[in-house]
């Protein structure tokens, strides 16, 4: 059977309207400043809104009969970016539809839609009853609950009518309410603020009456895996009378916020005498993560450190002078160079969050745009500062070049381009010590994903290792590649 394909694009306004109508106002969707410092680097479309949009690819007559859904999300959908949805009848049962959404050359979401739950979602169970549980009013801000398995939460829930205007024509209101509610459960209740929706199975009431407003829900946390933060949630939605409207099993990931660098571990001593002055270092991309740790480590070894950052400053504080300046701002970087004067060393650490991507002919332009922007984040500061640098240039690459991650072809290509720039610097300025740094995956907000949190190295460990080697004077002029993949705390 030929599949129907259509372009799907969600505007920022769609996302804001869905947030208002569903009451899932998690800042990952609606607050660019919050979303900027997540692994996505910006706001993402609610998964439930993505699923609703995908149902628009079904023939209208079939769409109206859908009462049960299963949805899987493999990557974020970005507002205003094009995605392609394909709808196909299932090979196993002709009344079941399979919908796939592709963006950035990769399948980012998949939905099975059926007229009844028995086909695709047998055995869904509601949460355990919690006698006497308090029914909380709807939240206006996301919760940050402790994630205790077995805990049951009950609350009020309703949707606004604008939800219908956002959805493809003909979708049953109870199904639509159920979808919005799944979003609310994850984004506002469990895990709330630091959440990622990864999958859900939703069975809505099969009756034909679309005029049954939602009023209350109950959710039970069934499982929480500490290694990855994966949660499994049972949930039920009901009318004011208590009659069931929907039952769901929801899977989500809880993200653990990353704390700022540990100054003690980096050698910063609050009351110790200042170390002997070694010179001036500029760190591009310095307010969070590895850049913040390396800035502190260099300061602790006697460098006057100037750090630039474009997002609102992170938790970095202490002996580093921060400049809020986008690394691609040529005029700003040129002014900074004039203000600072002679520079001993520069560290190029600014990077774009790499959204997962595949390499297809259609996605090649997304890939090259990522590479171009990443290269600018290094080339602009280098162009502005290089003439004033007398000692070292460190280009932060990645161990991903030795072991390319499957979903990051753009990241690998971008880091390779920056390494090319480092080779050029070493050849053109042979008196400088030029370092290509290929650190392993470190625990930063950029890698704060379910996979990224497994066995990452602390930024402090790598920052200390690098700062010690820059400061000890033994590094020769010319090009050196450091790949401190096996550094342990003892070795530093």
């Amino acid at each position, binding site marked *: 059977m030929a599949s129907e394909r259509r372009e799907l694009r969600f505007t920022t306004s769609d996302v804001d309207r869905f947030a208002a109508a569903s009451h899932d106002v998690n800042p990952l969707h609606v607050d660019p400043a919050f979303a900027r410092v997540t692994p996505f680097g910006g706001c993402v479309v609610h998964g439930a809104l993505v699923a609703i949009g995908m149902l628009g690819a079904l023939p209208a007559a079939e769409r109206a009969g859908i009462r049960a859904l299963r949805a899987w999300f*493999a990557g974020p959908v970005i507002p205003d970016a094009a995605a392609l949805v394909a709808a196909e009848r299932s090979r196993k049962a002709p009344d079941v539809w399979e919908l796939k959404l592709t963006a950035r050359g990769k399948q980012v979401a998949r939905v099975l839609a059926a007229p009844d739950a028995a086909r695709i979602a047998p055995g869904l169970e509601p949460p355990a009853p919690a006698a006497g549980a308090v029914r909380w009013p709807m939240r206006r801000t996301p919760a940050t609950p402790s994630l205790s398995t077995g805990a049951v939460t009950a609350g009020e829930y309703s949707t606004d009518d604008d939800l219908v205007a956002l959805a493809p024509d003909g979708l049953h209101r109870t199904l639509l309410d159920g979808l919005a509610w799944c979003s609310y459960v994850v984004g506002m209740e469990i895990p709330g603020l630091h959440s990622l929706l990864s999958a859900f199975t939703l069975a809505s009431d099969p009756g034909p009456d679309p005029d049954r407003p939602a009023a209350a829900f109950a959710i039970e946390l069934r499982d929480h895996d500490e290694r990855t933060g994966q949660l499994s949630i049972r949930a039920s939605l009901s009318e004011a009378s208590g009659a069931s409207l929907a039952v769901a099993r929801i899977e989500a990931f809880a993200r653990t916020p990353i704390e700022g660098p540990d100054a003690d571990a980096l050698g910063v001593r609050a009351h110790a005498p200042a170390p002997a002055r070694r010179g001036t270092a500029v760190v591009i991309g310095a307010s969070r993560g590895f850049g913040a740790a390396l800035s502190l480590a260099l300061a602790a070894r006697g460098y006057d450190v100037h750090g630039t950052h474009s997002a609102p400053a992170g938790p970095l504080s202490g002996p580093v002078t921060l400049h809020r300046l986008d690394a691609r701002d040529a005029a700003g970087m040129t002014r900074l160079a004039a203000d600072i004067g002679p520079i001993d060393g520069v560290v190029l650490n600014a990077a774009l969050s790499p959204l997962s991507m595949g390499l297809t002919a259609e996605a090649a332009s997304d890939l090259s745009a990522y590479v171009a922007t990443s290269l600018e984040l290094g080339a602009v500061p280098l162009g502005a500062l290089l003439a004033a640098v007398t000692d070292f240039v460190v280009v932060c690459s990645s161990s991903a070049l030795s072991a390319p991650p*499957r979903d990051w072809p753009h990241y690998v290509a971008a880091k390779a381009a920056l390494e090319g720039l480092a080779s050029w610097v070493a050849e053109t300025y042979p008196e400088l010590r030029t370092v290509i740094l290929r650190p392993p995956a470190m625990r930063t907000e950029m890698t704060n994903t379910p996979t990224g949190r497994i066995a990452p190295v602390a930024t402090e460990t790598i920052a200390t290792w690098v700062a010690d080697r820059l400061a000890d004077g033994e590094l020769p002029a010319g090009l050196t590649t450091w790949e401190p993949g096996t550094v342990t705390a003892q070795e530093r």
Partner: protein
Amino acid sequence: MIADEQFDQAFREVFEEIFGWDVEVTDADDPSSVEGWDSLAQIRLVHELESRFGVRLPDDALLERQSVGSLKALVLDHGE
């Protein structure tokens, strides 16, 4: 040890749970041949296998790319 057929059926159900009701895999399949088998799916797959078979797989299994057949062997190795 549960019967082979029962084990295979349960394994199939785990793959259906993670990759969709319509998926059909053989022991030779791996992340390059199954649509949607990316790093996130690998994590969900390992969690689902652990929950279904009552085993705890090594952390490496969460990240490593393996065939369906070697995942089966891994589950059997870590079962009772």
